[in-house]
C-alpha cells in the first residue's frame, strides 16, 4: 500500500523505477520492502536521517571539486537516501552485457594497435581512428602487459521510456565514482540496517581487494610481491578524495608525479630510505600528462621517462596507454559492429542510436533536427559542452550549428532519450527525478562487474544531466541476491 510521503507521488509520463503506472500506482515487487520502510518515516524523521548522512559525508571529507568555481573548492556530492533497487534477473543481463562489451573493446584496442584487421575489412573507417585525439600512434606494435588495455571500466547505463537498459558511453580512461559507491553503501547500512538485511542486497565492499588483485596481475616482476602505487594529479584534482580512499583501502602508496623518478627505464618512488622500484602504476592521470618527454611537454604532473620504462615492459600502467580511443563517442557508435566482428555475437546491451556528424548524411539530418536531439562533443567528459535540443534557445542551436559545420568529426548527436525516473527526496517531498547508472568492471585474471554501481540522479526538475559537475547527486544501488 502506498502511504506517507509517497501518497502524492506521480510517475508522470516516464518509466519509473519504483512504480508501474496503470490506472493507479503499483509498486514493483523488488521495491516493496524498502518502500514500506520509507513510507513509515515522517518527513522530520526522514530529514533527520538525511542530515546525518550529509554531516557524515562532510566530516569524513567525502568531497569533490567543481572546476571553474572559485569559492566552492570542495563540496559534498549530494546524496539521496532512497535507494535504487535492481532485481537479480535484470542484473544478470547487465553483468553479461558489460563483460561482452569490455572484452570487445579490449580486442578492438589490441587490433587497432597491431594488425588493424577491423580497419582493413572496412568495418570501421580508418580515418575515424586516426583523427581521434586519444589515438596514440606511439604504441602501435607494443604488447601491453597481459594483453589487457582497459582494466577498470565505468560504463554509463540508462533506461529509456520502456525500461530498456542501454549503454550511453564507455569510460575506459580513468573512470571515477567508485569511492562514492562504497561510501554511500556505508551510510545506507547505517540508516536502514534491517531493511538492507531483509532485502538480501549483494555486497560491494570487495572492490578495493579486487582492484588490487587486478593491478598485481600486471606486474612484470612476478617473483616477488608487486609494488603497486596509485598515481594522482594531487589535492587539487576533483577526485582526490577517491584517490586517497582507494589507496588506503588497498594499502598501497598514493603518489604524485614528483614522487616518482625514471632511471634507466625503471621507475622508482622516492622514499625516506632511498629509491624503491615500482611495478604497477594505477594512474588517475590522462595519457597527455603522464610523461612530459613523450606527450605534453608542459605537464608538471607526470614523470619524465615513464613511457620509456612502460614500452620496455619494466612497469605496467592501468589503464593502458591509448584507451581513450574507446571513449570517443564516434568509436562508441561502432561498438555493436565490434562485438559482431570480434566475438561473432549480437550485443546483449543496446546502444543509443548515434548520428555521426562526420558522415554527410547524418550531419544534414542533425542540422535539420537540432531541436529534437542531444549533441555531444566526441571527446569531452563530465557533461561539459553538450546541447540538449529541447531545452536550448535558438541562439544556442545556431552556435552549435556553426561548431558542427566547422568540425563535424568532433560532434555526435543522439535522440533525446527520456531517462527513467526514480523517487527522490527533493525540497521537502518525494518527487520523480531522472537517473542513470555507472557500474564498474574490472578486468584482470578474471572479469568482474561489481554488483551495484553509482546511481546518479539529476536533482533539478526535468533535467537529464546527472553529472556531479552539473548539479547531479547520487543514490546507493542495491542489487538483490537471487
Amino acid at each position, binding site marked *: 500500500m502506498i502511504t506517507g510521503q509517497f501518497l502524492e507521488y506521480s510517475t508522470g509520463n516516464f518509466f519509473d523505477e519504483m512504480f508501474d503506472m496503470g490506472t493507479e500506482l503499483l509498486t514493483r515487487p523488488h521495491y516493496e520492502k524498502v518502500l514500506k520502510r520509507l513510507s513509515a518515516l515522517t518527513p522530520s524523521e526522514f530529514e533527520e536521517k538525511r542530515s546525518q548522512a550529509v554531516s557524515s559525508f562532510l566530516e569524513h571529507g567525502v568531497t569533490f571539486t567543481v572546476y571553474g568555481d572559485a569559492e566552492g573548492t570542495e563540496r559534498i556530492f549530494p546524496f539521496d537516501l532512497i535507494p535504487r533497487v535492481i532485481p537479480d534477473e535484470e542484473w544478470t543481463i547487465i553483468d553479461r552485457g558489460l563483460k561482452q562489451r569490455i572484452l570487445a573493446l579490449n580486442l578492438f584496442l589490441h587490433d587497432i594497435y597491431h594488425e588493424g584487421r577491423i580497419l582493413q575489412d572496412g568495418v570501421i573507417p580508418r580515418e575515424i581512428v586516426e583523427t581521434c585525439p586519444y589515438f596514440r600512434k606511439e604504441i602501435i606494435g607494443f604488447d601491453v602487459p597481459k594483453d589487457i588495455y582497459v582494466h577498470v571500466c565505468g560504463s554509463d547505463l540508462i533506461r529509456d521510456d520502456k525500461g530498456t537498459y542501454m549503454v550511453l558511453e564507455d569510460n575506459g580512461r580513468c573512470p571515477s565514482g567508485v569511492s562514492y559507491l562504497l561510501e554511500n553503501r556505508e551510510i545506507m547500512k547505517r540508516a536502514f540496517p534491517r531493511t538492507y538485511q531483509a532485502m538480501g542486497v549483494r555486497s560491494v565492499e570487495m572492490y578495493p581487494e579486487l582492484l588490487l588483485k587486478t593491478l598485481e596481475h600486471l606486474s612484470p616482476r612476478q617473483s616477488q610481491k608487486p609494488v603497486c602505487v596509485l598515481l594522482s594529479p*594531487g*589535492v587539487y584534482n576533483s577526485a582526490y578524495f577517491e584517490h586517497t580512499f582507494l589507496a588506503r583501502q588497498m594499502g598501497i602508496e598514493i603518489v*604524485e608525479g614528483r614522487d616518482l623518478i625514471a632511471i634507466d627505464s625503471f621507475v622508482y618512488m622516492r622514499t*625516506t630510505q632511498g629509491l624503491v622500484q615500482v611495478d604497477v602504476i594505477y594512474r588517475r592521470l590522462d595519457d597527455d600528462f603522464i610523461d612530459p618527454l613523450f606527450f605534453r611537454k608542459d605537464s608538471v604532473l607526470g614523470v619524465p621517462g615513464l613511457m620509456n620504462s612502460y614500452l620496455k615492459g619494466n612497469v605496467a600502467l592501468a589503464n593502458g596507454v591509448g584507451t581513450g580511443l574507446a571513449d570517443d563517442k564516434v568509436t562508441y557508435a561502432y561498438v555493436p559492429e565490434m562485438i559482431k566482428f570480434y566475438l561473432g555475437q549480437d550485443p546483449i546491451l543496446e546502444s543509443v542510436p548515434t548520428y555521426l556528424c562526420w558522415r554527410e548524411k547524418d550531419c544534414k539530418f542533425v542540422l535539420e533536427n537540432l531541436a529534437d536531439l542531444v549533441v555531444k562533443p566526441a571527446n569531452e567528459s563530465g557533461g561539459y559542452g553538450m546541447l540538449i535540443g529541447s531545452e536550448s534557445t535558438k541562439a544556442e542551436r545556431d552556435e552549435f550549428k556553426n561548431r558542427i559545420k566547422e568540425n563535424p568529426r568532433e560532434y555526435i548527436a543522439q535522440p533525446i532519450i527520456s531517462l527513467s525516473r526514480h523517487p527522490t527526496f527533493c525540497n521537502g517531498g518525494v518527487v520523480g527525478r531522472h537517473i542513470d547508472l555507472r557500474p564498474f568492471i574490472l578486468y584482470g585474471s578474471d572479469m568482474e562487474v561489481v554488483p551495484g554501481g553509482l546511481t546518479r540522479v539529476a536533482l533539478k526538475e526535468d533535467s537529464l544531466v546527472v553529472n556531479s559537475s552539473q548539479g547531479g547527486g547520487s543514490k546507493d544501488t542495491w542489487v538483490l541476491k537471487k
Partner: protein
Amino acid sequence: MLSRVADNFYWMSRYIERAESITRMVEVNQSSSLDCSEEKLEEFWDPVLRAICASETFKESGKKDLAQFLFFSSDYTYSVKNCLAFARENARMVRDQLSMEMWLELNNIFLFFQSGDAEETFLQDPQIFFQKVIRFSLVFQGLAGATIPHDEGWHFMALGTFLERADQTSRMLDTLNFQTHIPTRLDLLAVLRSCSARTAFRRQYRGELSMQNVADFLLFSQDFPRSIRFSIRCIDENLHAISGVPSGNFSNEAERLIGSSLAMVNFTNINAVLSIGLHQTIDELQKKLMKVGQCVFETYVLLPFEIKSVGQTVTAQAQAQQQ
C-alpha cells in the same frame, strides 16, 4: 615511506603544535591584559609580538584587535586559522595513512574555523574558544599516539611536534628579554602558563618565582614535556629512530646538529647561560633548530642530486614555512 609523505607528516604536526601554542599564549596574555589600561595595551603586547616575529605584519595590517589578528587574519601567515588550514592540507595529502579519528578531529576544527563559527564563539565566549582549540591539539596528539602504528611516519610527526615545541618554548621565554622593565611576577607567571608549566614549576620550586628559576625550568627541566631540553632529547630520539643509527653517533647533518644542541643543554647550567645572556643563548638555539629542520628536509625529502640543482628555490620555500 614516501619522502613527500614524511614531509607532509612533519608539517602537519608542526602546524598543529603552532596553533596550540599561539592560542595558549593569547589566552594567558589576554587575561593579564585586562589589568592593563587601554593606552598601555600596545606596550603590553609588544614583547609577545616581537618574540613570535609578528610586530611588523601586525602594524602593516592596520588591525586593532591583536587577538583577532593572531587567530583569524588571512594576512598573517601563521594565524591559527591559517595554521589549521595548512595542517589539514598536509593531512589531506596523507589521509590514507591517518586514522579516521585523527582525520575527523582535524577536519572538524578546520570546518569550525572556515564556517565562521570559530570567530563567533571567540566573540561570545573566548574561554570556550581557547579550550576548543587547545583541546583539539591535545586530543589529536593523543590520537596519534593511540591509533596509528608508531612507525616512520609517526616519528616524522613527533619530529615536527618537538621541533615546533622547542621553538615555541624558547620564544615564550624570550618575551622576558623584550620587556622594557624588569620582569614582574605577573610576567613570569604568564610565561609559565603560556607553556602550560605553572603547576609543574610550583612542584619543583615550591613557588619560588624568579627569572632565574623560570629560565632554568623551561630550558633545562629533565622531565617537563615542554622544556627545551626535553624537546631536544625527543628530536634526537626520533631522528635516530628514523635513521636506525644509535644515539651518540650521527649519520647526517640533522643528527649531528641536534646531538651538539643536546650536549649543550645537558652540560651547561643556568648561571653559565645568564652570564652569556639569555637572549643570545635562545637566539643561537633557535638558529640551530631551524638548521635541523632544513637538514631533515635535505636528508629525507630531496634526493642527493637535487640539492644542488633545485636547492635554492626548494630551500627558500621550505624556509618560508619556518617563521
